[in-house]
């Protein structure tokens, strides 16, 4: 068995059970794992990475338009270089016309919650969908514009994910995956941190500059089906 006797694998190592010797030599021949192995494979570490931005779209006079604050947040996300940038947009097939513009502002992967009923704002359905997409992509950060609808959506989405939120941030800074969220209140600028992932922040329009579009930049779009019943009865 060549050094497998006393191996901490407790006989679960395939090399041991087949009768072959342990070819990698990693069993160590002692009743413990190689030094530093548990630290290296820290299975308690979160795998959250990247930024999800809520792309708010308004429909005025039959013309759909991305809210400026969503584009400003995409610019900030690109500047912070915190990994992949995900976008989430709601509405029917007509939203496809916005894909090119969304990708040009830095989105790598777009989740289109494709349902004509969701062209109208339903905060419960929106929050459920944001949480479901976050469960799929596991972002470290979620950024939502502090418009009236965004301000209504963001806390519910954060609660759906059991995480905290800092609203109306005046600045954001990323170090690794740790987001510092700054807020000014009564003339005082304070830095906040969220100890859980994802870190949810809302930002008002105009806090960050409008980024330049990268013409011809592409991305990947996924359709996402909303299967819940979080719709309001609008009269």
């Amino acid at each position, binding site marked *: 068995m060549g050094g497998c006797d006393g191996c901490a694998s407790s006989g679960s190592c395939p090399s041991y059970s087949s009768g072959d010797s342990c070819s990698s030599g990693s069993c160590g021949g002692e009743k413990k794992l190689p030094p530093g192995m548990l630290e290296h494979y820290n299975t308690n570490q979160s795998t959250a990475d990247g930024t999800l931005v809520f792309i708010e779209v308004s429909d005025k006079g039959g013309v759909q338009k991305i809210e400026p604050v969503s584009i400003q947040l995409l610019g900030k996300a690109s500047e912070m270089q915190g990994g992949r940038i995900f976008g989430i947009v709601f509405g029917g097939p007509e939203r496809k016309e916005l894909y090119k513009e969304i990708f040009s502002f830095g989105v790598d992967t777009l989740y289109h919650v494709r349902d004509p009923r969701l062209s109208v704002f339903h*905060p419960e359905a929106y929050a459920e969908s944001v949480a479901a997409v976050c469960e799929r992509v596991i972002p470290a950060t979620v950024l939502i514009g502090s418009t009236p609808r965004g301000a209504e959506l963001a*806390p*519910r989405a954060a609660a759906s994910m059991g995480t905290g*939120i800092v609203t109306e941030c005046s600045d954001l800074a990323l170090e690794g995956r740790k987001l510092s969220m700054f807020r000014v209140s009564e003339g005082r*600028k*304070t830095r*906040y941190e*969220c100890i859980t992932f994802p870190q949810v922040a809302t930002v008002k329009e105009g806090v960050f500059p409008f980024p330049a579009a990268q013409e011809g930049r592409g991305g990947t779009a996924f359709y996402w089906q909303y299967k819940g019943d979080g719709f309001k009865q609008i009269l």
Partner: protein
Amino acid sequence: MDYVLFVTGGPDSALGMLQSVMQEGDTFSAVAIGGEKLDEILDTCISAGASETYRLMDKAFIGSDTWALARTYAAFAGKYHPGAEALIFARYSSAMPMLAHLIRAQQFCYVADMERDDLGMIVTQDYGDDRRRCRVPSGSVISLKEGVDIPFQDKGASTSDVRILGLEDLELAEMSVGSFGSRVFEREVC
């Protein structure tokens, strides 16, 4: 029907709005979270017809972020007013949508008007660029639009002591509230 008013600022417009939809036999309770200085506001609610007033206060609540605050509100609503027709916030707070999620209720923000018909309550939401009327399911959480000005009718003060509720009354664990239960922390002043 029973309503709950969460006092998160001046309650006058909320009291006016509530009085406009309440019918004979309906009751409402007012609740605030914080220290004794809130008793004056709760007295205003009593004069407007609140049948009960509560003040949530405990050392353990200190340092709560909106998540911990929402859990405190949810514990109160679940234990003391589980069948409330609507939970109303006098002013929008981030804890309001979090509370709505925790109690699995619909949320209605920026409410500029409330009315009732045979089927129940209807609210008008004003997003600034759009107004819409929605039917409100029982148990929903509502917050009023800022700037709504609806005077309330003073029905005369009645003696009603403010009930002070703490951690044990709400059956909350210490790790659920305050800084232990928070997700967001203030790190430094810049």
